[in-house]
């Protein structure tokens, strides 16, 4: 009897392995993505998210993560052409996600982050910092309690030279607000974006020490 149960379990495990398991695949791929830092790895993960998106068709999260993977590539890249190429792909994925969920605050946060990553020279700063600000304002309208909005706003201010109205001191209250919101934020489901919390804490501590 015991063996029958085992064999049935094994059978079902096999079936569920070969069948679609959206939740589980997404969960594992997301975990892997947060741990990855190389362009090669993130590119292939973006490809995987894209495949999930194409297969599911009505879910915005796979495209969102595909876009986020492409954006994260640029965290470790200096060449501005390479950055632009990756962000162009991210934008395509983000546009697909926006088509499925036009009123999702998280998508506008990512749009804001994407724009700010385009600032590769001071001359671009004026254009893309205001585009980023616009997207984050839209995200705030849709969900003011989204902590990632304030994390991105804080980062934008932090990375703006103090002579242009930025700097650590001005960014501090924003990081603090993000910190508060991260504590109280309840993700609607297990696959919800969760990035930003750790970096926010790290930056907050760093700034507090600096000031």
């Amino acid at each position, binding site marked *: 009897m015991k*063996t*029958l149960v*085992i*064999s*049935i379990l*094994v*059978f079902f495990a*096999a*079936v569920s392995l*070969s069948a*679609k398991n959206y939740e589980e*695949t997404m969960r594992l791929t997301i975990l892997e993505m947060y741990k990855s830092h190389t362009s090669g790895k993130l*590119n*292939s993960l973006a*490809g*995987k998210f*894209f*495949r*999930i998106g*194409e*297969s599911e068709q009505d879910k915005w999260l796979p495209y969102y993560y595909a876009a986020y993977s492409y954006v994260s590539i640029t965290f470790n890249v200096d060449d501005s*052409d390479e950055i*632009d190429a990756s962000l162009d*792909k991210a934008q*395509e994925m983000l546009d697909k996600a926006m088509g499925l969920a036009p009123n999702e605050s998280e998508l506008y946060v990512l749009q804001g982050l994407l724009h700010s990553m385009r600032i590769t*020279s*001071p*001359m671009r*700063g*004026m254009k893309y910092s*205001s585009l980023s*600000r*616009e997207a984050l*304002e839209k995200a705030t309208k849709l969900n003011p309690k989204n902590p990632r909005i304030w994390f991105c706003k804080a980062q934008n201010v932090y990375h703006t*030279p*103090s*002579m*242009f*109205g930025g700097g650590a001191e001005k960014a501090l209250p924003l990081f603090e607000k993000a910190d508060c919101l991260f504590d109280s934020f309840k993700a609607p489901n297990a696959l919800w974006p969760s990035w930003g919390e750790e970096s926010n804490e790290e930056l907050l501590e760093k700034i507090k020490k600096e000031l």
Partner: protein
Amino acid sequence: MKISSIRTVFLILSSVLLIGGVIKGQTMVSGCVADKHTQEPLVGANIIIKGTYDGTITGEDGCFTLEVNERDEFTIVASFLGYQSQEHNFYTGEEEIVLNISLKESSQSLNAVTITAGSFEAGDKKRAAVMSPMDIYTTAGSLGDIGAALKTLPGTQIAPDDGRLLVRGGDASETRVLMDGVLASKPYYSKVPDLPTRGRFAPSLFEGTFFSTGGYSAEYGQALSSVLVLESQGVAFDELTSISLMNIGGELSNTWVGDDRSFSAGAGYYNFGPYNSLVKNNINWDDDVESFNGNLNFRQKGENGGLFKFFASGDYGGQSFWVPSGSGDKLKIDDEGGTLYINSTYHNALSEKTIVKLGGSYTYDDQRMVAGMHHQNTREAVSEGKLKFITQLSNSFKITWGGAWQKSDFNEEYQQTGGEFTWETNFTDHLTSAFAELEWNLNSRMAFRPGLRYEYSSQTEEQKISPRAALAVKTGDKTSFSLAWGHFYQAAQTDFLKYNRDIEMQKAEHFIFGLQTGDLSSRLFRAEVYHKEYDHLVTGEYWSFGEFVPETNNGEGYANGFDLFYRDKQLIKKTDFWISYSYIDSKRKFMDYSEKVVPEFISPHTLNVVAKHFVLPIRSQVGVTWSWNSGRPYHMPGDENFMSRTAPNYSDLGMNLSYLTSILGNYTIIHFSVSNVLERDQVLGYRRVPLEEGESKASLVTISPDVRQFMFLGVFISIN
């Protein structure tokens, strides 16, 4: 126990077999993905096992290996952005499958072929773009003037004594300027002889420009040589106050932002007096250039992507200076006037496939000019209304059609000092036009654009039909060839019509063949050859009061030439440069020319080198522009052969420096520029002075830049 163990083994085995039945062995699929046309590998293409999340992406060599743990049947999908996806079915238990895939570019893709013959685009995203909007600000020597920046592109004359665009053998009147597709009838400040003028519109108003040097779409007419289409910014989303302080004046503007709408207002004041008093001037100023301007801008987004735009600007200004009159005396030219311009457009989607664009513009211009004893007051009102539909019939067919109506009222009063002789003229012309153009994308590599334009002028009661056509073929990843041809008509300018209403439309025919390879982000090369035929050009005589009076449409001419353009952002680190060279062989018989010669505004060879270097540590951009052209022809009265002399070559080296900093936490750009760094004595050409009554010996006036060297210093502050 034993039996049950055996049973356990058996059960486990059978379940493994059962699982095996689902997995059905492994299949290794491997191969490469390439562009169907160029056979170049596609890096990062997605290989998907249909209906599952499984798959991979292609590597640096465009190749992939994929394990398929699937049933007997499975489908592999290969997809890549900008390409048509492909599916391959397999019904096999084979262990290894080799699958090489060639993907076809989608005709909707950003990379699809674009017709580039004769056109230069400045835009952020457009494939055919050769300039970005920022280039207009950062090109040394352009001083924030759209026309001056475009003059560093091939096909244009440098013409520092004009300031307007002279394209491929055409004079300044042959270029038509449009804002959001609707006529801007006075795009330049009023022009006085020998002095350059500037564009009326600040480049910051626009997010893109489309500059055609010939062979343009049937949508545009009434231009023999060129159209310049300025695309204004959409809804602003940043509350912004900007202050500009310059050594020649100042501007102030503010933008208010609401939900899906924005409004801005600005005003400016310019006075060249303080500057002129500091530097040595080639012009003997009586009253320095002084002007006021103001503008309003409103934008409202509608539902379904609709957009309403309203723009109004007005200015008033004047100047007066002394020029040699030829007989040795000095003549005072006094010029004063104002212009009002209103432009409003609306576009919206009528259905999923059709967009309607509606636009109107109104220009009122009032200029008073006094030259010696001659007093002239010219008033012109020009309105245009335009309606356009764009329908995407299918993936490969797009049709654009519409019509426009233009009304021009012209009034001029002439008087001689003392009021002994007065003269007044009035006329009104209605110009009706209609056009239709088909854009046919045979595939992603070939596009064909035939069009037809109809024009009717009430003044001359002429009807003209102009066929146009363009073809583009993409031969490589970033290489395409374009051909363009068309007939172009233009009514004589109002300055001519005022003396003779029977002057008919002038005609030009363009043939263009071009090649473009590369793109704006790295390297771009462009070459074009063209042939242009002019017919029905205006001929006439200069009368004793110095004005040209047209008599017939017997003139004709031609222009042959080639243009080269090379832009590189990769060769030298943090440096962006372009080189443009134009050669033109053009002759025409028009105006008062006694024979068919090279007209006096044409230099056969023109070269521009523009370089910009970014110095990151000091947040500055240094720019250099070198413009050179061979001498223009001129006629020395008394010479046996008409227009047989050549003026010296012209060369100008300009430099600029833009420094990004902040004032009280606000973005600030400090811009400094100098023209003619080498302080050359520049001679642009010579102008014949018409004989005044009682004079027997005609003479020449040397045309030289108004200032030997111009220095500009400006501080631009953005507060938000």
